[in-house]
């Protein structure tokens, strides 16, 4: 329990540090200190509201705490160009990013774990010697380039998939859930997910493979052989079970990292997610929106880091169960 609190504090502090860095970064932007939240795009009422909400006429240190307080209540200001609350905008697009990330990671990890274990099985064969560098090559290709090639090939050329966005024009749905579950959405989701999964599978594959190789040489695996247990039971029940521990942790970390990395994928496929929102906001200097998007991504990262810590603690009996002597 003490360990859990410690990890929570650690991650919370990291998030706080990020928020602070962001606070000062945006204050140092060209323009007046007010420029972080006020812009001539907003009407007079909105400008006044922002002034008060964020205490923009108060000293810097006071602004900092007001800023933090606002964040805790989910108040991130108004988008200059959409003139709507940033929080609302972000919550609209968040599901798209989450779905993209989770679908890609799940596919990538299932494939990676199976392929990695299989490659470890094929230790020393010519197949393994070629496969490992080939997988490294998939990690060497920029995600967006893979996306571009697939887009050109499978969408423009062969017409199998739509070329962008999350939905075809002219569709109407009664609720958000219905929209997400629709065939149209899935069709649009397919190509981005394929691209991302292709890029992401390298890590779990190589990790699982190297873990398996290490574990297979452990003494308890030899013991399992001496007991005459079936090869299946040894490899899956004992070796894989041990080798999977770091992979599960990596998955959790991957979710956090992916949310940030998806920026490029979302741009290639015009996928309306947080990453794309960030890019658009930055290019038009929509500071509140850019800040909000960045913070949301950082928050997901911190949360997933904490989840990864928790997973590691609960799944490894050596950590979850102390010594009894």
């Amino acid at each position, binding site marked *: 329990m003490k360990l859990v609190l410690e990890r929570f504090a650690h991650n919370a502090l990291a998030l706080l540090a990020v928020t602070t860095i962001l606070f000062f970064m945006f204050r140092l932007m060209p323009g007046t200190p007010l420029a972080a939240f006020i812009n001539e795009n907003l009407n007079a009422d909105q400008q006044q509201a922002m002034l008060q909400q964020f205490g923009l006429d108060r000293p810097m240190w006071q602004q900092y705490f007001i800023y933090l307080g606002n964040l805790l209540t989910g108040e991130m200001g108004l988008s200059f160009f959409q003139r709507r609350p940033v929080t609302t905008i972000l919550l609209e697009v968040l599901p798209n990013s989450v779905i993209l990330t989770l679908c890609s990671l799940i596919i990538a990890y299932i494939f990676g774990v199976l392929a990695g274990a299989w490659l470890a099985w094929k230790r020393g064969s010519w197949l393994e010697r070629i496969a490992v560098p080939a997988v*490294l*090559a998939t990690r060497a290709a920029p*995600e967006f380039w893979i996306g*571009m090639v697939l*887009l050109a090939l499978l969408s423009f050329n062969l017409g199998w998939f739509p070329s962008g966005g999350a939905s075809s024009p002219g569709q109407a749905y009664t609720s958000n859930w219905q929209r997400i579950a629709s065939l149209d959405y899935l069709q649009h989701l397919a190509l981005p997910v394929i691209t991302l999964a292709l890029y992401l599978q390298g890590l779990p594959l190589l990790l699982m493979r190297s873990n398996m190789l290490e574990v297979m040489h452990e003494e308890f695996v030899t013991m399992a052989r001496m007991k005459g247990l079936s090869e299946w039971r040894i490899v899956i029940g004992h070796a894989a079970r041990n080798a999977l521990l770091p992979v599960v942790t990596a998955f959790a970390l991957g979710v956090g990292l992916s949310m940030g990395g998806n920026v*490029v994928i979302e741009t290639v496929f015009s996928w309306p997610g947080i990453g794309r929102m960030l*890019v658009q906001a*930055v*290019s038009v*200097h929509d500071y509140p929106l850019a800040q909000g998007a960045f913070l949301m991504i950082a928050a997901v990262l911190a949360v997933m880091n904490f989840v990864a810590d928790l997973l590691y603690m609960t799944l490894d009996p050596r950590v979850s169960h102390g010594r009894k002597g």
Partner: protein
Amino acid sequence: MVERAESRGVTPAPLPARSGWRLPPMLRRLVTMPLRDPFAFAGITIYVLFALIALFADQLAPLDPMEILFTKAGKLVANVAPGAEFPFGIINLGRDIYAQLIYGSRSALAVGLSAAVIVATVGTVVGLLSGYFGGWVDSLLMRIADMALSLPFLPFVIVLTGFLGADTRNIVLAVALLLWPNSARVIRSQVLTLRERAYVEAARVTGASQWRILFVHIAPNILPLSFVYAAIAIGWAIITEASVNFLGFGDPTSVSWGMMLQDAFSSQALSRGQYAWFVPPGICIILVVVAGFFISRGYEEVFMPRLRGR
């Protein structure tokens, strides 16, 4: 009945930790490793190849990559398919793809190398200080490392370049800022193990100063690790630079593979099927980055002692 197991090819034993800068054996390992590992050899070949291309770009590409070509009649030479005269064709704005590809290697190498140097230097110094001195120095440095790691990588680079300006130097800086913690951590744990070794104890007992121990006894055993991480950093820097350029935050006057991809994307080269435009830059990036992976993998086997030997 005689059962014969396959005789495994075994990698040479890792370099044992010693005092002092023993250059000849180190250099020998440096040189002989690629001869044993075909992939590392390929990696080095690729690096050398691209270095030569970057060096002799002027000779290799007769056309200026930024020059917009016009026909004798004054019309824009646009979207020419690859052919004898223009090996990769011409983009929509009349620029030669081949020339861009060749000159792009310069910026790639520049970005990769400068980022790698910064990452390796900062990571090594931090790792050494943190691991050796421990205490508040260690806590402080590792806290900073944690903070760097909790910043989402690409978004941070985007925000930085988006607001500070589209300059390649900013990109390199941002990349280096976020990549050093990884190498610092690994080097730190190496230093922690080395610190307890007998020969360091011996040096301490005979009265060697802390700095001397650090520099003469520990650093030589750490440097190979720095190289390994530097090789990896080159790849990440190039991909990040390409990503940032692709998103439109790069310097539009620069010639780089990332910029080529940005151009291709925004001018609908995908729908036109101009594969000769956007496929080659990607291939080049893959080659350079994977070369880095292979090289670092090869040297990792030699220089990182495996805790569980087989």
